[in-house]
């Protein structure tokens, strides 16, 4: 009964996953560490770049979600809550293209700002095709999921806890900071781990928005290595590096949830 589903996932995910490790040590058919040497030489900046973008995006997403959901939980605002669900259903590729059109040097945002005089027509700033464009896109898309998860966690907090704080004189901000956040912290950690891994692994967005010049995000590097240089070895070495980061995050998450006494 379970066989066909398991078979597909094992064949088309687990086997290739494991062969990444195998292939990363092969070069011209020989066992070699050359691929990893190449990764170190050519791509170490990209690794830092990828981690940096992911951390910045995660920080923004969690920070905004923590505050916004606090207001949604305590004060309530149905239209804002609905609006935040929209990006959930917009595919990453569409986000990529939309941001291109919006944030490009000659994009709609700049031309709108030019009408108001904020932007200089002869030298418009280029937000798309830089790390800022990628961060904006990742934040825009992931904020929807973050709001959903954080609001769910906040709603699980007993209203009496908030009323007791209000009774003592706590403002909305203090209620978020002193009560909602500490009590929902475990859920926020789960959400963060999940989103961070997905940001590390983002492909379509940096492909469309990242721009032609290095540095690139890791997945784009893998793609270019395979597509333009047919270098399966180094591409897989990069892949293995990305798996290690994902496992690191998962390990951190597991440690956080098991350290607490049940």
């Amino acid at each position: 009964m379970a066989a066909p589903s398991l078979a597909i996932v094992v064949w088309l995910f687990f086997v290739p996953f494991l062969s990444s490790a195998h292939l990363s040590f092969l070069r011209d058919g020989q066992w070699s560490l050359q691929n990893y040497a190449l990764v170190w030489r050519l791509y170490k900046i990209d690794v830092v770049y990828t981690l940096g973008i992911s951390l910045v995006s995660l920080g923004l997403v969690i920070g905004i979600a923590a505050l916004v959901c606090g207001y949604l939980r305590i004060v309530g605002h149905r239209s804002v809550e609905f609006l935040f669900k929209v990006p959930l259903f917009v595919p990453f590729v569409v986000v990529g293209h939309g941001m291109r059109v919006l944030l490009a040097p000659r994009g709609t945002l700049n031309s709108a700002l030019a009408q108001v005089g904020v932007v200089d027509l002869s030298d418009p700033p280029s937000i798309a095709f830089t790390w800022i464009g990628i961060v904006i896109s990742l934040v825009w898309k992931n904020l929807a999921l973050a709001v959903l998860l954080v609001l769910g966690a906040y709603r699980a907090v007993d209203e009496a806890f908030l009323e007791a704080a209000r009774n003592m004189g706590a403002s909305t901000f203090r209620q978020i900071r002193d009560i909602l956040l500490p009590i929902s912290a475990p859920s926020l950690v789960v959400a963060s781990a999940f989103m961070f891994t997905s940001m590390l692994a983002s492909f379509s967005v940096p492909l469309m928005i990242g721009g032609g010049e290095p540095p690139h995000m890791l997945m784009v590097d893998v793609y270019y290595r395979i597509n333009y240089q047919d270098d399966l070895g180094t591409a897989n070495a990069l892949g293995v590096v990305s798996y290690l980061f994902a496992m690191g995050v998962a390990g951190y998450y597991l440690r956080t949830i098991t350290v607490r006494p049940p």
Partner: protein
Amino acid sequence: MAGTVLVAFVICAPLSSLVIWSFARRWSWPHPFPQELGLFYWRKVLEGDLLRALQSGFLIAVVVTAATLVLTVPLAYLLARYPVPFKAAILLVFLLPHAFPQLPVFVNATTLLYRVNLAASFSGVVLIHMVGALVYAVWTMTAVFRSIPESLEEAAWNLGASRLKTFVTVALPLATPGLVASTLLVFLYSLDEFTGTLLVGSPFVLTLPVYMYRTSVGYELQVASIAALILMLPGLVLLVVLERYLKSEYLSMFGRL
């Protein structure tokens, strides 16, 4: 009030740009609005490759959804109700495709598919879509079946109904809202899938996301915007429909064994 406007602006800005571009016949910098609006590109596009990509993507999504549900529903029921051996391991297997970066894995998967002559084929793309779709479906449907009180099925057994009959007449109907949610989620996932399709489908099998990507980086902005809008439609329909069905308990099941 100001907050709502700000949020609305931030959410809608990239999307509205797409709308404007799709109706632009001629638009050059630095005008804030197109100089010429029209349905020109809509007509042009619907006669050409876009239609092919749309049809092919839609068909793939239908096949993926059907196959996934057929394979997943019985499995999910078993996992929810019975002490399956290695249950934890099985559920973990169905979690990992979303825990690790897909691209490098799919690069190698493409090679595997190539060896059995399935690369650049319809079936190959269907299979690569199912890898991710099965994950969503197994977790959602397991949560759905778990949420049906066992006592309802026990009452049927007590009265003499066989397990199969109980499953069909009691469990399945009660699981309908979750089933609907799963179907829509999987369908949308397949329709929007990009990475796997780009690697496995090229160059013969085209879906709308890949078509949209190509036209976007090729600076055919009107065409790409139209493709993007069409791609967004099923998502927005799902948003409105799921406002009724999307219970956060389904999402919260992700990652909890």
